[in-house]
């Protein structure tokens, strides 16, 4: 696994550039969170400015279907809310589009400040072009005042096919780059992030609660950087899944 092969290099880099020690991600220091299935709301969320709430998973059954993953319709009156969909397959049926649209409509009708829809899909870098086409189509089906965001692993910025990435950044309003795989912070994230100048789209960095994070020096200077999103975990660490 390449990311681990890079770990030593990154550790050396962190140690020699004076970037300091990796700090543990404390949710109290952040104001944007993912709330995933099975994760209980935490006090830290009270001051959240942005919440990304998992709503469902598009599973690859035949035909594919949208399986609800969230709780009841929330009743939030503050901050910004994103509906998140975990996606196994891009082969959405007309019904799935209708169900996502209905979610959005119902959440807004209930007074929730929904600003966008976020897609969490393990895009193979070689297929970013196809993914971009899917996203462009999805965007065209969403109301004009609904943003479209995606999650992505760090590879995108450093290893992604530039043409595919360009197609993607033209379509989505926001990328959230994950620095973790499962519940672990990916070793060597510093090296990946150092190459972020290729991204060219507004992005946030996704962290995992209790994971480690030391921002690369260049990050604060990046005009596209919009802040962080912390993936919340239950304190006792049951089996929640991560994007």
């Amino acid at each position, binding site marked *: *696994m*390449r990311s681990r*092969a*890079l770990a030593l290099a990154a550790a050396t*880099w962190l140690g*020699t*550039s004076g970037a300091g020690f990796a700090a543990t991600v404390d949710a109290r220091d952040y104001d944007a969170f993912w*709330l995933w*299935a099975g994760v209980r*709301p935490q006090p830290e969320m009270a001051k959240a400015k942005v919440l990304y709430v998992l709503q469902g998973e598009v*599973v*690859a*059954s*035949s*035909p*594919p279907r949208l*399986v*609800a993953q*969230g*709780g*009841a*319709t*929330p*009743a939030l009156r503050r901050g910004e809310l994103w509906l998140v969909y*975990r996606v*196994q*397959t*891009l*082969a*959405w*049926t*007309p*019904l799935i589009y209708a169900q996502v*649209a*209905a*979610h959005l409509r119902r959440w807004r*009708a*209930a007074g929730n400040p929904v600003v966008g829809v976020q897609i969490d899909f*393990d*895009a*193979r*870098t*070689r*297929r970013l*072009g*196809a993914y971009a086409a899917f996203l462009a189509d999805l965007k065209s089906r969403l109301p004009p005042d609904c943003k479209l965001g995606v999650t992505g*692993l760090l*590879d995108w910025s450093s*290893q992604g096919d530039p043409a595919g990435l360009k197609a993607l950044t033209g379509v989505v309003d926001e990328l959230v780059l994950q620095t973790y*795989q*499962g519940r*672990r912070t990916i070793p060597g994230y*510093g*090296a990946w992030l*150092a190459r972020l100048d290729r991204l060219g789209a507004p992005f946030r960095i996704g962290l995992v609660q209790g994971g480690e994070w030391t921002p*690369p*020096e260049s990050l604060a200077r990046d005009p596209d950087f919009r802040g962080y999103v912390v993936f919340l975990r*239950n304190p006792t660490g049951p*089996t*929640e899944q991560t994007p």
Partner: protein
Amino acid sequence: MLRVWAAGVALLALAFVASPARASGDFTCAPAWTLVHTQYTGCDSVALLGPGNDTRVNLHLLLIDLHGGRPAAPSPVIGGAAPFSWENFEDALSGKPGKTEDYTSEDVQPQSSEFATGEGTRCVSNAGGAAGFETALAAARRLPPDERVRLSDARKAMQPSCEASSGAVLPAVTVAVGPVKSSAGRAFAAYLQGAAAFYDGDFDTAAARFAGLRKAESDWLRQSARYMQGRVELNSAQVNAFDEYGAIVPAKVDAAALAAAESDFKAYLRDDPGGLYAASARGLLRRVYWLGGNQDKLAAEYVWQFTQIDPHARNLSDGDLAQEIDAKLLGASEAARVADPTLLAVIDLEKMRHDNAKDAAAALSLADLEAQRPRFAADPALFDYLLAAHALFVDGRPAEVVRLIAAEPPGERLGYLSFSRQLLRALALDRVGDGGARESLMRLFPVATAPFQRGALELALAMHDERRGDVERVFAAGSPVADEAVRGILLRHAAGPALLRQRAAAADGPRLEARWAVYILLYKELTRGDYAAFSRDLALLPTQAPPAAPAVDVSRAPAEPDLTVFAWSNPAGRYPCPDLRDIAARLARDPRAVEPRLCVGEFTRLEGFDNSPLDSPPPADELGGAPSRFPGGEFARMAIYKSIIADPAAPAADKAYALYRAIYCYAPSGHSDCGGPESPVSERKAWFETLKHRYASLPWAAQTTVYW
């Protein structure tokens, strides 16, 4: 993330690097290529039951065993050798892995609605309820025709959303059914009003209407009303139980209503076990138990699901069941309270997770596991497997695995527990250095036909041969290791020049593999210093361009190596270089020659070989992580620059260029793109000052104004 998707078809792409700069995984989820995973990443599930697997995968594998079947198999082999995520697994098992063609509305179940499957709203049943109502109307003999039409229209007009913001549907329904006067018609009208009140959240009215239908003439009305009484109580129990995030707050659940719901559903199931709503009532009981925090009863319901061979009785696919159990039970469960061996095994495997040897002490202890023995009395094979898994994954005592699990004669085919037992045994034999390890793997191939089993075996066999220094065997005629990703990793990281040369010319392997072998061979010869061999092996380059990828689905075609890179030259560059043949010839005469070495650096820099996977071996415990058989070690452009910077005999212009390149290795991030150990800022500063002062007259100095 972070996988044999789609039955390995897409995985072909993973076999080889698509470009020199691409990571070894062509997915955002980069798997660790081994069967022994002690921690959860979400990307590293395998067909071997273990702690690193997603709990849902472990559970689904055991459910496949329990339900005595296997998923629909479009081909004999589902799944490749790559560790996978839950999503990849379900995708592969769906029978239509990676299906990309559009589905039309005809594919969708007639009862589908704008609510997602399993959505937590009572309105989810509106479409199905409407269809049932129509059928019941049609069957009601004594209903006057005009009333039938009126009732049908009223039902169709009822489109509740169950949102506080939307208007109530009961008033309109009441008006619509007003003219219905016949006794049969009044019963249907009462049911409609009950349903409307239910969807409106007016649970008292709904309860009263449904209660009045106990003696209705229509069988459908009686059954439906009975079942709806339970749903009314259940919904009434949770009215105020959600927080602002939509999450349930157990303390706010109305316990009395919940108890009434439980009693209603149980009565329904008792009186009409094969009734229309039996599966639904059974499912809603799970919600009752979940809302009430009743872990024991919830677990008992899941165990009941385990015992149902007929999928219709379960009302849930194995995948959905695994998903639900994971979300609703496993996270909240105390192992001490769980009696069922299957659930307990999944919990135990999860508790065996740990990050490293030090953390193993925090994992499930052998004593705690032993204390569970009575609960596994009905399934000793599973318990022995857990003991063996503990020995291998936690305690690192492979000999204990061999003691616990006997070799069994392979049957017709292996369930996942039997497969895991025999595979774990083979892995343990390997670790104790038993000469029979390879044979014990080989015996499993003919019976490892369930999804992902064969891939796991291929990975195990490939790692065995690699670690025995016999990577050639993987590529020998008749080798069962066909997974292109596995073969690709070995060619990239393990193979020596002789094997690469043999694969490049082999007629028995895939042509794509032959082209990658040439690519890897030439790159490594040039960058690891076997210049004479490089010159000779240029003859292996195909004279014709490779065939164009088939037009059907280009995105799935395996990545082609770009063999044209070896025709590289850069005579007009800022640092001019002849072609590689010339460069190699000069280095063959004098490996220390400065200019051609800088040109090797130019080649790798300009052709995108920085951070190449070919120079990034996997960790030692993964496939490809054993010491490479290719002499010379990994290439780093930086090593060339440092060597020339330190070479007193190097010409000034070349030395200045080496300084310039070394400084720019750190642009703009402060992190080197050129491989090798990182240099401290002080060293980078020294390069800069040397370039600016000693070589001030050279253009490279003028172009360098900062360092990183």
